[in-house]
Structures are given as structure tokens and as C-alpha cells.
């Protein structure tokens, strides 16, 4: 089973040289730490920056420089700043190659729910609906099951949707799975120490198991 850092490390393996990437809040933000140093990738922040750098030192904190999670950041050399309309223009027009975000539920058709729990205070969708409706390639970082053990990889989402048929791949604490175009979670890799049966039991939606399923390699 993977912890949050394990999920982030596994997702970092999906990153390819030359990609522009938008990282959501939470586990996705951690992914930045595990992208190989020799790869040239550019991180986009939807509040108006291409080229997010590491967090600042105490001395270099600049209140005019934050990421979409409102954390203080720095800029990489070659960064560009822009307004919020321009930011979502590049997101909607598919210029961002990869979007990594969290989810409460994903359906076997790739629907995603991650912004609202009925009965709980609604804080808003932020940029998530724009991102999932536009991105060419969406990877979801999530827990396979709720604390109560209920599967979050479902036939059909029960929570209000963020977007339809958009998730391409899921990295959970238990497995890596692709969402197939015609529906279904195809199991690609097992987390270290996790059996196919455990993944079967934790997946309510249609699970497709084709041949031997390798254990993932996390360094």
C-alpha cells in the first residue's frame, strides 16, 4: 500500500520531458518534489504563472507570489506571469499537457467528483471544473477507499460531479489503473504488497484484469 508520498512518487513517473503540468492541491503538489532533475518540465499555476519554483526561503518570501493553493512560492528562470483569463485560456485550449488532481470519487466512465459533499459546507469548485473539462491528460491521485472502507472507484459517482468522462488514469494507494474509453478500470500495476484480490474487493466499478499484473516500482 502506498502512502501519500508513494502516490506522489508513482505519479512523478508519468511525467515526460517537455511537459507543461498543472498540479492540484494536496498530493498532486507533492509530485513536484519527485520529478527527475534532468527533466525539463514547466509547472503552471492557474492564478497566473508558468514556471513555479521551489518554496522560498524565509528571507525570500514574497507575498505577491503564491500558487493556486495560496502557498508562497518562487519562480524559475524563464517564468511568465499572466492574468486569470489568459491562464484558463491556455488550460481550455489544451496547451497544458498534464493535469494531476485529487478526487473523492471516479466512475468507470471517467467521471470525477471532487468538489462538493451534500450536507457539508460547500467551498466551491475553484478551477477544477475548467481543468477537468479541458485537459488532454488527467491523472487522479486518490485513496482507493473511504475511511469506512467503501470503494471510491465506482460504477457511477454518487457525489455531485466535477466533470464527465475525463479521467484517463488513477494512481491510488492500492493500484495504477487506466479508465478505458468505453468504460471500466483496467488494472495496470499493484502497489507493493497489495494483491489483485485486495484491489478487486476495493473496486466497485468494473475492473478489467488482463494477464499478470506487475507490482509497481517506487524508488
Amino acid at each position, binding site marked *: 500500500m502506498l502512502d501519500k508520498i508513494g502516490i506522489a512518487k508513482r505519479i512523478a513517473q508519468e511525467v515526460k520531458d517537455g511537459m507543461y503540468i498543472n498540479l492540484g492541491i494536496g498530493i498532486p503538489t507533492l509530485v513536484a518534489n519527485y520529478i527527475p532533475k534532468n527533466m525539463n518540465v514547466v509547472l503552471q499555476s492557474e492564478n497566473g504563472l508558468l514556471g513555479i519554483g*521551489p518554496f522560498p526561503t524565509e528571507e525570500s518570501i514574497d507575498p505577491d507570489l503564491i500558487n493556486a493553493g495560496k502557498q508562497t512560492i518562487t519562480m524559475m528562470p524563464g517564468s511568465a506571469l499572466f492574468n486569470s*483569463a489568459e491562464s484558463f485560456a491556455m488550460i481550455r485550449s489544451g496547451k497544458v499537457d498534464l493535469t494531476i488532481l485529487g478526487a473523492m470519487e471516479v466512475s468507470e466512465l471517467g467521471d470525477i467528483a471532487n468538489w462538493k459533499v451534500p450536507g457539508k459546507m460547500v467551498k466551491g469548485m475553484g478551477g477544477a471544473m475548467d481543468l477537468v473539462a479541458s485537459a488532454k491528460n488527467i491523472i487522479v491521485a486518490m485513496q482507493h477507499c473511504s475511511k469506512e472502507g467503501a470503494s471510491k472507484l465506482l460504477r457511477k459517482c454518487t457525489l455531485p460531479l466535477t466533470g464527465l468522462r475525463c479521467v484517463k488514469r488513477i494512481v491510488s494507494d492500492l493500484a495504477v489503473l487506466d479508465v478505458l474509453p468505453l468504460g471500466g478500470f483496467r488494472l495496470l500495476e499493484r502497489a507493493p504488497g497489495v494483491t489483485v484480490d485486495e484491489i478487486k474487493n476495493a473496486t466497485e466499478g468494473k475492473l478489467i484484469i488482463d494477464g499478470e499484473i506487475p507490482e509497481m516500482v517506487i524508488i
Partner: protein
Amino acid sequence: MINKVVKNADEAIKDIPDNSVLMLGGFGLCGIPENCIAAILRSGVKGLTCISNNAGVDDFGIGLMLKTRQVKKMISSYVGENGEFERQLLSGELEVELIPQGTLAERIRAGGAGIPAFFTPAGVGTEVANGKEAREFDGKMYLMETWLRADFSIVKAWKGDTSGNLVYRGTARNFNPLMASAGTITIAEVEELVPVGELDPNAIHTPGIYVHRIFQGSNYEKRIEQRTVRK
């Protein structure tokens, strides 16, 4: 050039009537018009509809205007980080309209660009689509969204000149230039007000034509929401 300088925030906002629609720039607490918010608190104007990506925190930004019950309705993409907000929302004192962030940005941009409506993919198949026209273009579904405009747009820039040209700094730009273009009256507060001719015409983010009033603000706190440092 046309001189748009007013004395201070109190003068800039003094004619905002009750029940106005305001746009307020900023993302989180970054790039918010601190001086004008303080002046609005002093003015006591009420029944405001505020279009702003966020709603501040309990004791800073728009959160302060919520505390004084000056806000009737918030139009935002994300309103977390605010206990008073939650209380007023649950008690029915406050109305809230939540809009996907990119749609919010584009609707404001459309307001400033004379585009009454446009199609965007955000929200297709979700509750955001309720009551909206959906249409297919090139095999993909989109929703029709309409422009947003404000009686008063209140923005914060880094530098400005006396004719209203504005330059923002870092990610404090965010919604500010969009809102500047979408106000019937646009008020800009700047950290540094310079004479006409000092800003590079090639590097201006908001051309002065959009700005009606400008003043140099003071005592910027620039509070940080998530102070995060390298380990």
C-alpha cells in the same frame, strides 16, 4: 493625457450606493485592494453584491466586509478559509453563487470586451449546467455563459500613472486586469503612483482607458495565507 487621480480610498469609493455590484480584484489575499476595502468598511455602504474569486479570511480582505454585514451576495469560485462566511451562509443571511474559476475569469473578460455570451466546456454534465444552453461544437459539448459587469470595479496594482495605466506584480495580477475592464466605474489603488510617461508603454497590463479613478494606497499589509518555506 487625462488626469484620473483622486485623493485617497475614501474619496474614490464615496459615491458607491447601497446594493451596488462590485468587482474586487485578488486571488486569496494576493493582490486585493486593501485600502478600498478599509474605506468601504468606514463608509457603511450596504447590500453589496461582490464578485471576487475568493471571500477573504475571517479578519482580512472581504472577510471584514462580511463581518460588518455589508455584503448581500458573493459571486466567487472558492470561498473556504472563512468561518464567518460559513455562519452567514448557513443562517441564510448571505447568498452565494459559485462559478468555475476559468468561467468566472472569462465572464469578467467578456464583460470588459463587449461579448455578451460565449461557450465553454467547464461544467458540462454537472450542476453548473443547470438552466444553461448546451451546444456541441466539433464533437464536444459546451455551455453558454454570459458576461459579468460591475457598477464599480476595484482593483489593486503595483504601479500606476496619473492617466490610469496600470502594471501589476507577480501573481498579484490574477483577476485585477479583467475586472478593471468590466467596471462602469473602475477604481485603482496602486503602491506607487508615477507621472505620465514613466511607465513603459510596451509593458502596461491595464491601459488607462479602463480606469476612472486612481490613488496611491498606503500601509499595505499584504497578509500571507499559507506561509510555506523550503525545508
